[in-house]
């Protein structure tokens, strides 16, 4: 088991190193144009320049704030509505067609209408992220509620549980694996939407720095921000997996 883990870490490190080495080799070619493919030293330099100027931390905090708020609103709404739709058939027949009809629309398609209605204020950006989180999360919550094994529901009922008690003590815990997966996918969707929303209209944020990098031809800055987004999204997902593992201590399949 330990050997296997070490082997896994090694292989993971190997693939990342390989890509880095190839990048270094390519950027060291005499005919490489550093404006298109900036060497790693320039990318790191851009990181420190932006860090010292304070622009990076400003952008990061603005973006993280939007992510957290949007994620929180979107997933909370998804949890409430998903539970109701998945548990009460009347609500399902009422709301499910609506969700199914709206679901295939990419969240970015709402950008124009959100800008028309709410302008390019902070609210619009958070709203877009909320929509994105809600859409991917709600589907998982509904699936979780629908997949509650019937024998658990029957067992609770014959032990004297009321409908609402079954919901609280059986349906919610049984659906937790699905719900957590929904939250994880929502987090990924939050990052995707964030950058798109900030690319279009934002006075700050990581997406804004990307846009600025393009405008002033600062390829090193663009590259640097891409790496930052990757690292942030990756570490947040890892944190989520740790939470998942803790909550799912009872489950046979904990991934």
């Amino acid at each position: 088991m330990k050997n296997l883990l070490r082997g896994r870490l090694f292989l993971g490190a190997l693939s990342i190193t390989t890509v880095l080495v190839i990048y270094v080799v390519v950027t060291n070619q005499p005919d490489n144009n550093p404006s298109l493919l900036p060497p790693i030293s320039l990318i790191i330099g851009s990181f420190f320049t932006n860090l010292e100027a304070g622009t990076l931390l400003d952008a990061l905090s603005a973006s993280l704030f939007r992510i957290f708020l949007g994620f929180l609103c979107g997933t909370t709404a998804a949890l409430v509505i998903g539970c109701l739709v998945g548990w009460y058939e009347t609500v399902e027949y009422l709301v499910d067609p609506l969700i199914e009809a709206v679901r295939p629309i990419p969240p970015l398609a709402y950008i124009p209408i959100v800008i028309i209605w709410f302008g390019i204020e902070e609210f619009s950006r958070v709203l877009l992220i909320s929509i994105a989180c809600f859409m991917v999360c709600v589907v998982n919550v509904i699936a979780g509620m629908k997949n509650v094994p019937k024998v658990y529901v029957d067992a609770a009922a014959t032990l004297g549980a009321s409908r609402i008690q079954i919901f609280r003590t059986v349906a919610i815990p049984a659906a937790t694996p699905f719900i957590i997966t929904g939250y994880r996918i929502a987090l990924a969707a939050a990052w995707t939407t964030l950058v798109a929303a900030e690319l279009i209209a934002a006075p700050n944020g990581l997406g804004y720095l990307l846009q600025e990098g393009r405008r002033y031809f600062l390829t090193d800055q663009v590259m640097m921000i891409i790496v930052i987004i990757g690292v942030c999204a990756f570490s947040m997902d890892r944190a989520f997996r740790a939470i998942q593992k803790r909550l799912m201590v009872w489950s046979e399949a904990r991934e």
Partner: protein
Amino acid sequence: MPEIKVNHLSHTFGKNTPAALTVLDDINLTFPSGSFTSIVGTSGCGKSTLLKMMAGLFVPSDGEMTLDGDVINGTDNRRGMVFQQDAVFPWMTVAKNVSYGPRLRGASRAEQAEIEAKWVEMVGLKGFEDRWPRELSGGMRKRVDIGRVYANNPDVLLMDEPFGALDAQTKERMQSDLLKTWNQTKKTVIFVTHDLEEAIFLSDRIIVMSARPGRIRHIEEVSLPRPREDAMRLESEFLDIKRKLWGMLEH
């Protein structure tokens, strides 16, 4: 005293349609308080359906069932049920599973702890209180299931082929242990099975059902002495009953 009565009960799936299928036809039964009754029959005889109706999980199309004169209408904590499938909640430890019913009705922590200690020991799982169900074998999970139903203190225990998925040795041990527990509590038990040996070993009375539509074919009083020992399974009286009932089942 808690006594279950089944009066002129019939059930037809898809009643008043061309595809109507009658699974139970005019069933009349009385299950006296404190008795152990088994219902046997080949698959499709409606025995599980009948049991689910007594639990309140299923509404018959005609007739009614009463518990102590009260018409059974929906589920409640007076009739506990053990299912063939694994119904132990995987997100609760052994102890929390056992005290689930009392907790629903607002038992205090002290009461819950007392119930947990009593029933975990009664079903032979002492030392496993804080384990997750995934860490237990199939037989042990069935013990949790039985302990959970007993801890809820129902008037009647309904068991739907509870040992159907267990290996032969585990099954025999579970049967002996079930009888021990039954002997200490004297609760009314209605036990559905397709295993004749199991039915004879456990019961005071065996109801044999025939299929399509489900009807009562025969009622056998089992006069083997109690407590029942494993060796009885090979005695001639036991085997005589088995032979007689075997001939009645449609093979």
